[in-house]
Structures are given as C-alpha cells and as structure tokens.
C-alpha cells in the first residue's frame, strides 16, 4: 500500500507520520507543498504542525497551496485522505470537511493524552478496531470544532462524527471536553467517509515504551482495510 504525506512549511508531525506509516507496512513518500502532482497513492495524509505559521487562520494558506488541487481531486475521486491536527484544519479550509476549528475555549494550548470514543465504524478508518475508546494524544491551540446548526444536524444525520472526546469509560459529556468543541467532536468524516480529519495524533501512540499503543490499532486497521 502506498501513502503520501504532504509537507508544508511549518509542518512538524510529517516525519512522525512517515515513521508510523512505514512501521505498519505502508510504502510512504513525502510530497512537497509546491509540487503539483501526487504519485499514485492509496492514502494521502496532511500532517500536524503549523503550516505557513498559522497565518490568517490555521490551515487557510495551506488550503490554497499548489499541491491542494491534487489532494482535492484525489479526495473527490474517492481516495482516502487523512488530516491530523493542522491537517484537519486544512481540510476544513479547503471545504472538503464542513465546519472550522476555532481557538480553544479557555485560550490555552493543550498538550496531553485524551480518550476518544469511536462513533462510527462503518468506514475504512475504524472498521476492524475492536476497542470503543482509544487513548490518543492532542497538542493544539485551535481544536474547538464549530459549525452552523444546520451543518451539525446534517453531520449527525449522515453519521459523519468520527470520534468524540470522552473519559476512559467512553462518557463523551461536557466534563470531558478539553477545548469547547461542539458535541465533544474530535474528528469528522465527509459524507462518503473517505476523508477523515481529527485533532488527536495516532502517530504519537505507536510505541508502548514511549507513549501508548492505541495509535497502533489505528494504523493496523488502516493497512488491513485498504
């Protein structure tokens, strides 16, 4: 399986993602933002970081970069596109995913482990994961998911909520909401479920000695599902 990680100026989780993808069997290639074409891929990843210094709005400049047209074409043809953290912000700025990530409610940069509840397994990203709750890492200043009421209804009706912040038992209530996100949303799909954007970093949880292993479950499922 071939994957491509796009590098923007200011991306800083691109190499972690490269290590994670390779560990679980992907043949990964790194693609520069100024390129126009993406080589044949089964998965495109927009990594975390601070693309273009978070200028204007997080992800807004990357959302208009040269490479993005290829990413949009790939996504619209049904290809799997995964955006983590800043990658999620970029996906909302391109319009591939609805809504936007606002500044965290309490103005703090949050860097900690959290639990997220898998809300929909009828997709390639979570299909064969046996657990319902995963422990992953978040590190962001703008992770407060927001969209209009109509959009929220449509997201809920179409099963587009992918993961929500919760406690270790899976209670995804306001008490377990780190950043003010609507409905505790930590990640969403597009309607066809081939595009996933999420704030938590699975690539940081692939080594039991350094962090945890729930990210491994994510990547193991991904390569098996493709």
């Amino acid at each position, binding site marked *: 399986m071939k994957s491509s990680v796009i590098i923007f100026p200011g991306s800083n989780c691109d190499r972690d993602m490269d290590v994670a993808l390779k560990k679980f069997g992907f043949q990964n290639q790194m693609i520069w933002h100024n390129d126009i074409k993406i080589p044949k891929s089964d998965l495109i990843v927009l990594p975390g970081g601070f693309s273009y210094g978070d200028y*204007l*709005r997080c992800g*807004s400049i990357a959302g*208009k970069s040269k490479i993005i047209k290829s990413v949009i074409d790939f996504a619209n043809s049904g290809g799997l596109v995964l955006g983590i953290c800043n990658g999620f912000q970029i996906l*909302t*700025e391109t319009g591939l995913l609805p*809504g*936007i990530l*606002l*500044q*965290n*409610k*309490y*103005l703090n940069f949050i860097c900690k482990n959290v639990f997220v509840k898998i809300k929909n397994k009828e997709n390639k990203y979570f299909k064969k994961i046996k657990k319902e709750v995963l422990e992953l890492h978040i590190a962001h200043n703008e992770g*407060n998911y*927001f*969209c*209009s009421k109509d*959009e929220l209804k449509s997201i809920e009706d179409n099963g587009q909520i992918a993961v929500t912040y919760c406690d270790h038992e899976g209670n995804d209530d306001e008490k377990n909401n780190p950043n*003010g996100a609507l409905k505790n949303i930590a990640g969403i799909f597009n309607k066809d479920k081939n595009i996933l954007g999420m704030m938590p970093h699975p690539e940081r949880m692939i080594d039991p000695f350094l962090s945890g292993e729930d990210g491994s479950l994510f990547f193991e499922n991904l390569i098996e599902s493709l």
Partner: protein
Amino acid sequence: MKVKVIVTLKNGVLDPQGKAIQQTLNGMAFNNVSEVRQGKYFDIEVNESDEGKAKFQVEEMCKKLLANLVIEDYNIL
C-alpha cells in the same frame, strides 16, 4: 488603488481573545467595557484604477481566502 477590508467574527461565534481583552480592560479600571470582539483589518493595493472592478475583485478575495464564511463576515470599506 487601495481597498480596505475588515473581517469580523459573526454574532454568536465565541471570541475568547476578545473576552480576555475585555477582562483585562476591566482590570485596568475601564469598568464600563462590557464586550470586545476582535477582528482583522486588511489594506490591499490593487493595480486597478476602476473602483468598482477593484472592489469586485476584493470581494472575491474575501469569499475565497480573507474570511471564512462559516464564522466570519467581511466589510469592504
């Protein structure tokens, strides 16, 4: 010609920075400040002498890049 644009958050969208500024102003004895909403201001030099054309272009810029219409409104001055 120069075109000026102000981008502001829509009503109802949380503005934690504005809130922090308001609280700081209150702490500085500006007790009558009840709300602050922070926005963005752009000075755009367009190589175009026709004002209508320039503003039309800037409006496109606002829709496509300068403002995110999910949360922001723009005002071309």
